[in-house]
């Protein structure tokens, strides 16, 4: 564990701010790609670092701080997205359940590249697995452990995401 991490763990706010500046870009990128929305990503990034501060005591240094933080990020975003989805499922009359998992409005995601926009427009579950597997390099078993979905679900979502992405980019 680095000196900075140890000081932050002891409650040193300045040290924690340094950790924030060191990792904010990666956390924000992950939040942005998992949520598909820049405003939402900013909120989630704040939530991640507040949660990180609260849980820093439990960080034992068994893995790199970044690894621990990014797993925490996935957990925070996943939990938030599930909450949003449950709310939507309650407030929208669902004729076909899969349609609740709607794509984001690409005009609002704040991403400039075509590929980023195509990823952001994927349905939520497919996008999440694609980001974790294909961009972040997690294995299906890791994704299943972090998010609570089945390995088979993760594979199915990846299949769906890749197919949709190919279709979008081939148009």
């Amino acid at each position, binding site marked *: 564990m680095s000196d900075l991490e140890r000081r932050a763990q002891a409650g040193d*706010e300045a040290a924690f701010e340094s950790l924030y500046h060191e990792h904010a870009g990666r956390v924000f990128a992950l939040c942005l790609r998992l949520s598909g929305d820049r405003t939402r990503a900013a909120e989630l990034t*704040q939530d991640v670092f507040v949660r990180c501060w609260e849980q*820093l005591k439990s960080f034992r240094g068994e893995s790199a701080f970044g690894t621990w933080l990014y797993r925490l990020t996935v957990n925070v975003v996943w939990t938030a997205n599930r909450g949003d989805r449950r709310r939507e499922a309650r*407030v929208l009359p669902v004729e076909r359940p899969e349609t609740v998992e709607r*794509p984001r409005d690409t005009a609002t995601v704040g991403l400039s590249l075509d590929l980023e926009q195509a990823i952001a427009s994927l349905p939520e579950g497919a996008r999440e697995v694609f980001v974790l597997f294909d961009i972040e390099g997690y294995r299906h078993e890791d994704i299943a452990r972090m998010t609570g979905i089945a390995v088979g679900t993760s594979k199915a979502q*990846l299949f769906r995401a890749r197919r949709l*992405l190919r279709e979008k980019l081939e148009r």
Partner: protein
Amino acid sequence: MNEREREIDLPPELRAAVDGLPRTIEPPESLWPGIRDRIRLGKREGGRGKRSRWWIPLAAAAVLVVALAWWRLTPHSADAWEVRRVAGTPRVNDAALGAVGSLRVGEWLVTDDSSRALLAVGDIGEVDVKPGTRLRLVQARATDHRLALDRGAIFAHVDAPPRLFFVETPAGTAVDLGCAYALEVDSLGNGVLRVTGGYVEFDWSGRRSIVPLGAIAETRRGQGPGTPYVHDAPESLRQSLAAFDFSDGGDAAARTAVGAARAEDALSLWHLLQRVTPQLRPLVYDRLAQLVPPPESVTRSATLRLDAETLQRYWERIRRIAWRREILRDLRDLNPGTGLTK
């Protein structure tokens, strides 16, 4: 990698593009102050509190005993809702709100230009009270959760059966039908309602607008809700509806609105049908029926009589198409007249 994964793997050029995506994206510069404020707030509320936890089960048991006693001794419908400070210094009546407080029936919650608060709607939802807002808790019963929004802006989301949450404004009352929405009221008492989930009904003196996901309704003090329109409605339609609803535009404005409406604007025509003069009603109906054919059980004559059941059946078709259009946006190319995939 198994056969299935190989089959769906990305083409090499796409794989290269994915691998080349930046791993970091700079967040807005303003994130750290918000984080700092929240962790300082957490410190004041007890810090990270990880020192010793032996007392937690005892404390929990004590809290349970007190809560049970309170539950037995007080009416079950609490007369106060929890309110949390998000930014600045919101005030409850004249007192500055701490990190967490309560808003009792009859009390005002006021945010200035730099303050914001989160108000729990009993246990069925939450209201984000934006800066520059003044609202009062009117009723806090299990069957009637009611706020009065005097001015400012709120975002409400409620996870409960319809008609349990109401927001009174100078221009009428927003009735939750299971939804999420933003509601703004200016200093004159005029406002705008934007629905982001489910449906909201807005009532004033017998005038009613049903505003579904993706739609907007403007409101005016003394005139109630305007004709709702979808968020991407043509400007000409919006202007003619505003003229009809709020500026004595009369039949001329209604005719312009009818001419400007697309199939996607059936929501507006359905409302307009019930607001125009009987002489103009056939024109509105015929245009609506041309754009979105009614169900078989809906007849022209019954609709022109404003038969309630007939209107409701037509509405069911219109709202279902509108909902599919919104929920399948960018995913399916829908025929706006039928809601079916082209």
